[in-house]
């Protein structure tokens, strides 16, 4: 085996062991704290009012050490062709939220228009199960228009009994966005909103992510097989942090979390560690 593949395999195995021992925790492999920030080595568990990517580098870059639950977060594809990537990432992120949600909030609301369903498909149970999301926990709303999607999302936020809401709209007005943001903040229910690549930015979102697909790494055992899904994840807007930070992450099917893509974790994003080692 090539060395890289061996390390990959070992990492996955360790992740699996850790998450089996304590499902609430996730082990962060990227050992570099973001520049200028001191993070104690044992801060595994996220704060109760956030949910995380499970990726140390991203979670600790965010001012809240994760994504705040009481807020609206916007996910945009990098190009129109990346829309499936954006919705896949959003679903995976919601799967993480659902896994760590308290026992009395175990339902996820998903809403989309028929047009978007025809375009990007509708959630498929067996595939969701592979993301670590129990399909029985999902309520699907198939709407005719954007306005119905927004109404359903807002109702879901106001219900206060959901783990989160996830929806996609083709166009979003300022007022509608503000309503969603207020409802999410008031009821402490997270809202992920998928908006088109070209649409205007929404100032009320707590964070805005731009998602693009990235070629996956060659498979550990056979180069011709697809391995983990990879995304280019750019933080376009975030209160209290400068925008434009970008990561290449991959989704781990085994531990149901994001992690920095291996090549990046080893080299590009570890200048300090490398320097320390060298010196």
């Amino acid at each position, binding site marked *: 085996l090539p060395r890289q593949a061996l390390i990959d395999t070992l990492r996955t195995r360790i992740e699996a062991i850790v998450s089996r021992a304590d499902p609430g925790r996730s082990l962060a492999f990227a050992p570099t704290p973001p520049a200028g920030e001191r993070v104690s080595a044992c801060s595994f568990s996220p704060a109760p009012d956030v949910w995380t990517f499970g990726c140390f580098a991203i979670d600790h870059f965010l001012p809240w050490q994760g994504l705040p639950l009481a807020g609206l977060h916007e996910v945009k594809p990098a190009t129109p062709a990346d829309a499936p990537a954006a919705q*896949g990432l959003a679903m995976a992120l919601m799967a993480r939220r659902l896994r760590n949600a308290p026992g009395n909030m175990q339902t996820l609301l998903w809403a989309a228009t028929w047009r978007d369903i025809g375009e990007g498909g509708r959630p498929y149970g067996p*595939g969701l199960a592979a993301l670590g999301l129990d399909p*029985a926990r999902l*309520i699907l*709303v*198939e709407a005719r228009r954007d306005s119905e999607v927004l109404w359903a999302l807002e109702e879901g936020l106001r*219900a206060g*009994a959901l783990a989160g809401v996830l929806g996609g709209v083709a166009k979003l007005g300022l007022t509608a966005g503000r309503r969603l943001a207020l409802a999410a903040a008031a009821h402490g229910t997270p809202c992920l909103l998928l908006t088109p690549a070209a649409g205007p930015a929404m100032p009320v979102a707590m964070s805005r992510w731009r998602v693009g697909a990235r070629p996956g790494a060659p498979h550990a055992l056979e180069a011709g097989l697809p391995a983990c899904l990879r995304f280019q994840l750019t933080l376009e807007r975030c209160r209290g942090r400068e925008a434009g930070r970008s990561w290449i992450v991959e989704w781990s099917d*085994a*531990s149901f979390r994001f992690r920095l893509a291996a090549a990046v974790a080893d080299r590009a994003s570890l200048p300090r560690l490398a320097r320390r080692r060298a010196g």
Partner: protein
Amino acid sequence: MRRFVSVWLPQWPIERLCRASPGAVPAEAPLALVESLDGRLTLTALNRAARREGLGPGLALADARAAVPALATLPAEPAADLVALRRLALWMSRYGVRIALEHFPTRWPPGSSKKMRPGKNPERSASGDPRRRQAGARSGEVDTGAPKDRAPRQISAAIDAPDGIGIEITGVAHLFGGEKGLLADLVHRLAGFGLTVRPGLADTPGAAFAVARAVQSRRLADRIVPPGETAVHLAPLPVAALRLTPETQTLLHRLGLKTIGNLTGVPRASLERRFNSRDVTAAVLTRLDQAFGLAGEPTKSLVPPARYIARLTFAEPLVSSEGVMAALGTLTERLAGDLAEAQAGARRLALALYRSDGSLVRLPVGLSRPSREAAHFRRLLADKLLSVDLGFGVDLMTLTAPESEPLAAAQVTLADLTSDAGGGTALLIDRLASRLGADRVLRLSPRASHVPEVAERLVPALAEAAPGPLDPPPLESSFCARSDGEPVSTSPDRAESWLGARSHGEPVSTSPDRALRRGARPPFLLPHPEPVAVVAEIPDGPPACLEWRRRRRRIVRAAGPERIAPEWWQPLFRPAPDGAAETAARRLGRTRDYYTVEDEDGRRYWVFREGLYGREEGEAPPAWYLHGLFA
């Protein structure tokens, strides 16, 4: 004691027409509705002016024209009559719990139609030709005693149509100040709509029917049979009032049994001997027993009778939505109170608005789990009420719970206040479903099938209240687990059924590629597989290049194939002639090879080739489809 009202509308088709198009129908000129019957135009209904000229239903149009040259005619519309009568019957549900359309074998009175006159040869048929009698008994038909040469009678749809409404008013009359008050209110309102009304009120539907049709007096007191006095009041009425077919009536007339009193005077045993057929006897005795309440008469109500009803009448019709909303508040409180008393919760609600012009608006609402929260009812119904046209005003509102379930009172604990035990999700589903429609708020439910689109079922979230145990036993981790050579687990974990992935904590495996080897499933599935153009290096191999939605993508990685054979135990769909249906139908009939492919940009698709080269090329060459999206 149960009480029934029968409302006969003798002039229904004509009066309905007058009501539907007031300008089109002359008020004073003779008018008749005609229908083609036995190849000639026949009158089915006439207005008052025409009747005054001596015409009657059943007359041929040519004869009628000869007598009254100025007769105007319009085609009869039995279907529209029936629809309108049903609508009126629904509106009449304000008077009682069960309503049904009343159907008479022929128009009453029987002599009004020429075709229904008795045969010319009574002696012959009374004794009966033995051969014919036997034949009739064998074939189960009533021996009519009619002459042999008579043409087979064609029953007119218009003449045979329902022309009355039966209502059970048990326990309702006091709301109208007694039975007389109820009947007076009913007649007053219907007369206000321009209808001729002949009501009857008695202990049984049969007796009420007879009174409505056969009592000549217009006084309401004569049309109400006091409880227990059915026999006295029914005795002078003609036998035809018992809802007998014309043939049976003819027979009874020949036997000299003209009134119901005559019939009850004859011992039952001897009746059977007088009739030449057991069926006739059975028909007569059944009708007689039904009229006197000795035999039950099951009827199907137009609207299912609800166990829990709250109603509110208004002296002045409500025309503003504020007023209706306020009334809704009162109704929901009352219904919730009734439900709480009975320890029940509603699964369905129906709000009925009776408008003063005789129409009815029904707003049904479903609930995902039994509830008796007035505030919740109000929110659900208020959404729908906003879009209702109140017309000329609403003078009665009822809120019913057509379906309810036992719901014990629950002690609310402090923990419940913060948890979902309060049913936040269920309330949300109710709200979403009542606004968007129950078929658009869905849950995913697994199904034991290898065919990907069949393996998942979308069920209305309203029906499937909460994720409970699986209804179909899962087909286990199907082919996936087996391909790993692992023992097939029989864990009852719900997520197991979704292709072996575990939902909580446990990672499925320690090797990341296992998901691919066991046949990955995409998180998003297209509603219909979309045809794609594919270039493959070898016919049986994975695609090298894929054209989907007019974009060409070069494939750099592929996993597969995962072969999914058609379910041979399911009936095969025959190819339909038209394109789309054809591919969809044939799809179940051919083997699919699924591949997970990734293009050079890292976008991952789930594609399949339908059909095997060399084996399944019979109808068309194998074709490629894109079925799902990973990212």
